[in-house]
């Protein structure tokens, strides 16, 4: 998922660099204010830990293997802001020392894996957990989402730069990464499980926390909305086409011919991939909706308590 130099057009990487740069500066200010001296060496070692985690391959099937992203894992350990800082540190180090990801694309990579994969992944965790009260399930859903969403934004960025048409890249990337995401989810759960059992006090999210009241009704709501989204999305979601049209009107990708797409179409692969990916997009939409409603309610509650 690390995009090298030369693959993104300036129209794409300049705004992303601005977004990532600003959020990094504000988050690191926010953290440094309330941080004690002990935290920096510990965060540094945690970053080295995530670096090692990203080198771990696991079998996905069909002879291929995926590697972990660790975004939700690190956010569950040190919190979302610390997670973003750690993820960005790793990405800078990978770009400088290991030629994994480029310099001009650093902002984009931080956006994909730090902001979407870690910060937003944690928000998804909070949203689902607030709704269902089941930590284990929320960790799984958020880890899956973080991988799928990071791959989706990567695909969108590449196709906005005219590298790979969206109709090919989006289904292919999301298709592969929704399987890798299941692996990421299970691995994240069992890693947190071990740590929660052995040293609960070292992490933020205790996965063995069974004291919460399970809200049965909200479980049903979650299941129903995911089912509806999965069934309806092939008919309703025209997201890839819509984005492609926007890109064409702005003139990013009007010039190219979709030969690879037609190649795929001959084998009827793109249709199957297309349907699967719209279903996945629908499920992702539901998760995003929960995260957003969680945030809105939190903000409203905060406003009320201030008054």
């Amino acid at each position: 998922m690390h995009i090298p130099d030369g693959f993104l057009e300036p129209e794409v990487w300049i705004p992303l660099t601005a977004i990532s740069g600003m959020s990094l500066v504000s988050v690191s200010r926010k953290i440094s204010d309330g941080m004690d001296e002990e935290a920096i060496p510990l965060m540094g070692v945690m970053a080295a830990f995530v670096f090692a985690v990203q080198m771990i391959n696991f079998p996905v099937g069909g002879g291929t293997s995926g590697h972990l992203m660790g975004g939700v894992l690190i956010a569950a350990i040190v919190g979302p802001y610390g997670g973003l800082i750690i993820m960005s540190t790793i990405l800078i180090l990978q770009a400088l020392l290991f030629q994994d990801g480029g310099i001009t694309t650093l902002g984009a990579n931080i956006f994909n894996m730090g902001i979407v994969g870690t910060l937003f992944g944690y928000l998804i965790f909070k949203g689902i957990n607030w709704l269902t009260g089941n930590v284990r399930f929320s960790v799984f859903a958020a880890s899956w989402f973080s991988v799928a969403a990071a791959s989706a934004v990567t695909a969108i960025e590449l196709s906005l730069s005219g590298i790979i048409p969206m109709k090919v890249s989006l289904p292919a990337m999301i298709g592969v990464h929704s399987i890798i995401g299941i692996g990421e989810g299970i691995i994240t759960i069992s890693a947190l499980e071990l740590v929660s059992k052995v040293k609960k006090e070292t992490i933020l999210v205790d996965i063995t926390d069974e004291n919460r009241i399970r809200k049965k009704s909200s479980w049903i709501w979650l299941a129903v909305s995911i089912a509806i989204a999965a069934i309806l999305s092939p008919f309703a979601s025209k997201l890839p086409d819509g984005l492609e049209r926007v890109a064409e009107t702005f003139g990013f990708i009007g010039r190219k011919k979709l030969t690879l797409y037609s190649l795929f179409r001959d084998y009827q692969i793109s249709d199957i991939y297309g349907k699967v990916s719209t279903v996945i997009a629908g499920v992702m939409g539901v998760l995003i909706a929960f995260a957003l409603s969680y945030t809105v309610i939190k903000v409203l509650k905060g406003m009320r308590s201030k008054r």
Partner: protein
Amino acid sequence: MIDPSYIDRYSNIDAIYQKLDARVKLLITIIFIIVMTVFVGDNPLRIIPFFIFIVILSAMSKLSPKVLFRRSLPAFPFLFFASLTLWFSKGNHPAISVFLKGLVSVLSVIILVSTTNFSNLLRGLEGLKTPSLIVSMLSFVYRYVFIITDEYSHIKIARESRNFGGSKRWQWKTIGYSMGSLFLHSYERGNWVYSAMAARGYNGNIRVQKLQQIGIGDVIFVVISITYLIIAVWILS
């Protein structure tokens, strides 16, 4: 696993480029990559002036082409795969030019990193206004990444030697547990590190030697490189 001597091996060679200020080198490398990726476009031949720039830099730093090639190997799979898809969709020229753009930027970063000792590079980043939290994090990661990956390779060997295999779900869970124990090891180590640092007077700031002032050689280097890039862009447009 990663060899710790890998990174700083060529930073102490007696050559002109190694003696330049880290800030200057970092800045020129970033400007170079931006200018190149923006102005090369779809025609692979337009990369030539930028390639010449890289050749000059590698001559100034006495790095052999063999070293450069070997270090750029990790970047090849993605570059190759992505250009292949591009070759299907847009044809020869854009695919080759994207591949070359990626390769030349990788080479320029390799030259920067292998000629600059890592702590100077960090001070260079600090000089370019990177948040100080991230700079100190980078210095810690650089110290511990080799140890932690080594630690994981021990866990992995132990796992493999007990006939690791079986169903995918079970494998995923086991990998998860090994990551959990890797976390615990890293956490312990983080605490030791802090105690050791506190015992040596650490109070939250890492004291480092100030970078030297920018010398006349650095100024000449900046002027020549910027002029070169402007002329290259002027010829290309």
